[in-house]
């Protein structure tokens, strides 16, 4: 695809002014984060999966840089540059280019260069309220730009986390299940493994050493590992310490002794992950099958319900909103509510807008602690295409 045609350029500029005006009028200060970003921030924080979609290059100083693949991380960095302690509430809006490699070739709905108009809210205290406010504002901006019909796809990563937190299992199992959430087959396999034979093939590990380790004595465990390596003539190289290796072995030992995950817990997680319902039917359905799953999950359902009510009160058509438990895991940093706005003419593969809650991202980028954060961005070229198509 060639770059934006002159006529498109004018129309995109006009559309951007409309969108930004709404954001600014709602109290979101317009900012312009750097287009060229240090690659390390993206790769260390978001992980390698994003690298496959990011233009990474080495500059003449040998530093690894990238063209920003989205504006969320750059806006987080801008916020932290202004408020290193992350102790202020802040509302930002932006309109600018983002760049993504398209593995099967770029086309009109998946361009390698596109403009995002969006908002990010940091530090709010009431998460449900901030989530609802974000979606409502995005929908209002879309409407103002001429979008008259859409479909809302939603998810809530926080529900899955709460379900795992309540379930009785070692923390490292939770971590593994979270890691596998975005790949249904792997999650299914892991649940099956944990509920039948959780021990990793312990035969492959140094048995006598594992038996000698005492979970209550980490310092002693570290010494035993160091002594074992010494005796085997294995040099300790790299950044990983003997203490970390000891912790790894203790985890293996604990897995070998741990009772398997209860089948009903595995079944509960499976049925949650398989949940696809109209958004309004989710809370009753989850309460029904979770039964007495736990207080944390119950609270997460309450929060879900409250957010839905806030959305309905603001005029969002929640009756036609859809919910899918699996939705939202493909972007690693989401931690709560997630949504996409889909126009029928472009389909679910090319949403015109999307966003969600990402409470742990700011800490990963350098904030002293987790900071409540929610944001969303509009894919402006797609929006323009849909609006124009509707007029034609």
């Amino acid at each position, binding site marked *: 695809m060639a770059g934006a045609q002159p006529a498109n350029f004018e129309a995109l500029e006009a559309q951007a002014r409309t969108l930004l005006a709404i954001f600014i009028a709602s109290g979101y200060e317009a900012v312009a984060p750097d287009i060229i970003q240090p690659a390390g921030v993206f790769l260390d924080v978001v992980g390698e999966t994003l690298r496959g979609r990011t233009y990474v290059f080495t500059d003449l100083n040998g530093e690894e840089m990238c063209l920003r693949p989205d504006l969320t991380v750059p806006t987080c960095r801008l916020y932290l540059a202004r408020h290193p302690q992350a102790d202020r509430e802040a509302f930002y809006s932006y309109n600018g280019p983002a760049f993504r490699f398209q593995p099967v070739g770029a086309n009109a709905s998946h361009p390698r260069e596109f403009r995002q108009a969006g908002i990010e809210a940091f530090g709010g205290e009431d998460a449900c309220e901030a989530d609802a406010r974000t979606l409502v504002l995005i929908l209002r901006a879309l409407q103002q730009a001429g979008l008259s019909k859409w479909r809302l796809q939603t998810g809530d990563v926080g529900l899955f986390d709460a379900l795992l937190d309540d379930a009785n299992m070692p923390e490292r199992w939770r971590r593994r299940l979270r890691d*596998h959430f975005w*790949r249904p087959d*792997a999650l299914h396999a892991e649940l099956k493994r944990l509920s039948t034979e959780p021990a990793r093939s312990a035969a492959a590990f140094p048995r006598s050493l594992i038996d000698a380790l005492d979970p209550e004595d980490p310092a002693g465990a570290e010494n035993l590992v160091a002594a074992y390596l010494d005796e085997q003539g294995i040099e300790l*190289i*790299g*950044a990983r310490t003997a203490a970390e290796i000891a912790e*790894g072995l203790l985890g293996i030992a604990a897995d070998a002794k741990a009772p398997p995950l209860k089948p009903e817990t595995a079944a509960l997680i499976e049925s949650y992950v398989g949940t696809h319902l109209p958004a309004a039917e989710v809370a009753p359905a989850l309460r029904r099958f979770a039964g007495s799953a736990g207080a944390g999950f119950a609270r997460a359902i309450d929060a879900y319900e409250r957010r839905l009510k806030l959305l309905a009160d603001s005029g969002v058509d929640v009756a036609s909103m859809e919910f899918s438990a699996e939705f939202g895991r493909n972007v690693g940093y989401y931690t709560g509510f997630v949504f996409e706005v889909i126009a029928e003419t472009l389909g679910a593969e090319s949403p015109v807008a999307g966003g969600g809650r990402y409470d742990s991202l700011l800490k990963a980028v350098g904030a002293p602690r987790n900071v409540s954060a929610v944001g969303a961005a509009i894919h402006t070229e797609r929006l323009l295409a849909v609006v124009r198509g509707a007029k034609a």
Partner: protein
Amino acid sequence: MSTHLTFAVPSKGRLMEQTAEFLAASGVTLRKVGPERGYRGEIEGFGNIDVAFISASEIVGALNSGRAHIGVTGEDLVRENIVNVDERVELVKPLGFGHADVVVAVPACWIDVNEVADLEAAAAVFRREHGRLFRVATKYINITRRFLSRHGLADYRIVESLGATEGTPAAGTADLIVDITSTGATLVANGLRVLNDGVILKSEANLVLSKVADWSDAAKAAGNDLFTRLGLPNRV
């Protein structure tokens, strides 16, 4: 429209010698034309074939762009450098030389990590202790990303390494590596160990055909003649 078929052959080293030997076994003789250090050649008795002597990694690019119709290069390079391999090229025949395994190797002292699945737990503790992800040094960025993603590992970062990759864990610039090995001796000498399920690809030199080259009638005829001589079924 091309009236000739372009055959890309490694320009130096063992790979060039072994390619010549493979062809010679079927009575096909490569000859350089022009100056002694030139990069063009021909095959005796195949007037419609131009031989281009280029480096094995550039051969992949030539096949992917269609500048060469066929070529000899390593499967590792093909899988690393072409995104949609099956649409762009066909691996016609493994040639039995240029063997190299692409493997995941970790420091031998990681006695709590035997399989790729064990990396996840180690990565989580590492991130907590060091505030960063595991760094994986490799020149096989795409192969590594595909392999680790298939194993569900997300907590890592690739650092591109164009030489002496085995030394990076000891030097502290990476935590583990993905690299080629033939005997494993270099890995052992650098205090590394291949994970039990860490062989990503058993690579060797292949005769590779470009699906996107200009396959004119003349090029097809030349290709089929050559394949017949090499005892291969006609492909084009």
